[in-house]
């Protein structure tokens, strides 16, 4: 499967600068959740609001018989629905996954309700696997899924997951290649063509004599 770097960048260049803390740092992946996620939430809100508005409006009209009051109720429901839709959009907008050449960071900021920033420095861990998971037919249809990055650090017992992002396969493949390239120069397990010195050392010290020498 072919992939391009643009498949892995949802957020504009202007916004991705915020994730860079060093001059030589480069953004590998920067994504939000799929656009359909807030759309579905908005559709549910609109559906619920319309049911509540119709039932409340009917009650007001039948029992109080007041058109002005019904009008006020409709306006109030309009404000409430608009604010709920705005909240969904803002929550989606401030939820960003970014992977740079130095770190992995998840920013989730909900105005008035809290903030969550989870970052992980790549020089402190070894990436062991990058998986793409498309859980259902619906996700497959929309080219949406999860990408998980696994680490071997004992204290970090969880995987870093990018949930419901667009183009998960392309992102996982690009990320896998980029992380492998990134870890090659710095990590001993990527050095190729060297003799297996660890085995020789263990053989050397076994019973105080050189075994199989």
């Amino acid at each position: 499967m072919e992939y391009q770097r643009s498949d892995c960048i949802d957020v504009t260049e202007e916004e991705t600068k915020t994730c860079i803390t060093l001059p030589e740092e480069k953004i590998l992946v920067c994504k939000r959740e799929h656009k359909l996620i807030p759309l579905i939430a908005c559709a549910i809100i609109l559906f619920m609001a319309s049911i509540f508005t119709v039932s409340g409006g009917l009650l007001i009209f039948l029992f109080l018989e007041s058109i002005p009051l019904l009008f006020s109720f409709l306006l109030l429901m309009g404000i409430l629905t608009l604010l709920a839709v705005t909240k969904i959009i803002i929550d989606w907008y401030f939820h960003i996954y970014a992977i740079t050449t130095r770190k992995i960071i998840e920013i989730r900021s909900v105005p008035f309700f809290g903030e969550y920033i989870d970052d992980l420095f790549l020089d402190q861990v070894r990436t062991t696997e990058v998986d793409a998971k498309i859980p259902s037919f619906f996700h497959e249809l929309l080219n949406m899924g999860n990408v998980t990055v696994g680490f071997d650090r004992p204290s970090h017992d969880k995987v870093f997951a990018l949930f419901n992002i667009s183009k998960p396969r392309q992102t996982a493949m690009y990320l896998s290649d980029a992380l492998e390239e990134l870890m090659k120069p710095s990590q001993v397990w990527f050095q190729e063509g060297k003799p297996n010195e660890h085995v020789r050392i263990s053989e050397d010290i076994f019973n105080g004599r050189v075994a199989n020498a």
Partner: protein
Amino acid sequence: MPNTNILSFYISLFFLVLSFMLVIYSTLYRKETIEIRNQLGIALSREVEALLTINIFLALLFTLIIAAVIIFLSSLVPR
């Protein structure tokens, strides 16, 4: 009929208080969102900024309309 009008008047008053609180909420929400934008450095798109501003204006407009409805209802309440 007068009793219904009085009840409608008080319910409208309740709606007015609620919508006024929503105006305050939407104003503070916009302020908080802009603060987060400044803290995190995540640029807000024009559409999102426009949405936040429209929220405040619409909430204010609806509140004013509800206030006008209350004035209208109060004229129906017998003195």
